[in-house]
């Protein structure tokens, strides 16, 4: 089955983001496909390359980057939410003359990417909100 995920939860508050990443890994382990993971609103903070979390807690970035590196899952941050949440990829950082803050496994793009994924997938699963 073909899945698309919508992540609204921030990595800082609650466990929605962690659950979403675990779900994505389980979906792939069971032989399904993930069309795209779209991050909206506070969910865009999951793409941060600069946030520092306590060393004695589970890594919050790695479950996502593994999905991109090992399984070629597209990780897309909604552009209007991303900019408000200090999430700038190289292109946006250059446009606004700021530092890059996103991990290269994530891309910043428009809501059209969520709509496109939703129209192609069998299941769209939302985390958080």
């Amino acid at each position, binding site marked *: 089955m073909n899945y698309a995920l919508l992540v609204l939860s921030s990595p800082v508050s609650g466990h929605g983001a962690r659950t979403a990443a675990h779900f994505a890994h389980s979906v792939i382990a069971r032989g399904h496909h993930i069309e795209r993971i779209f991050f909206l609103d506070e969910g865009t903070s999951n793409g941060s390359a600069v946030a520092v979390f306590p060393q004695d807690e589970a890594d919050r970035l790695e479950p996502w980057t593994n999905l991109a590196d090992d399984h070629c899952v597209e990780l897309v941050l909604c552009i209007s*939410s991303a900019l408000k949440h200090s999430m700038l990829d190289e292109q946006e950082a250059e446009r606004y003359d700021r530092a890059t803050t996103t991990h290269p496994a994530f891309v910043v793009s428009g*809501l*059209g990417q969520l*709509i496109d994924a*939703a129209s192609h997938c069998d299941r*769209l699963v*939302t985390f958080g909100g």
Partner: protein
Amino acid sequence: MQRPIVTVWSLLAVDVSEKDRKRSLVVMRQSPYGSSLSRASVDLALAMGAFEQDYDLLFMGPGVLQLVAAQDSEKIGVKNIGRILSSLPLYDMESVYVDAAALERYGLNEASLVLPVKLLDDPSLRSLLNDSDHLIGC
């Protein structure tokens, strides 16, 4: 005599291709100014209209407050969500559904909202949620 036949065939053709299209329901559950999620969902609804998707909107729980006509967000320095929502009919959206019980709980009625809406009781709300291909709950 040809005309009705042609019409029937073209209707059938539309019906077949429409079968493959997905019907989404965007579910608005957040109060308008309590968090940024309400605005993100409104932006999503506008984008779905711009991308010519088949979708409906459902406002439930505190989400019904987004539709209140008498809202003024000027003093908190953000855009008026009711005003943005009132432009939705320009985007070819199909229907706006409202959880009737939530509306009543907040002492509101259809006349106090920015858009013409369809009120749903609990059983019809459940069947709407069941019948949509995708639910996007924000």
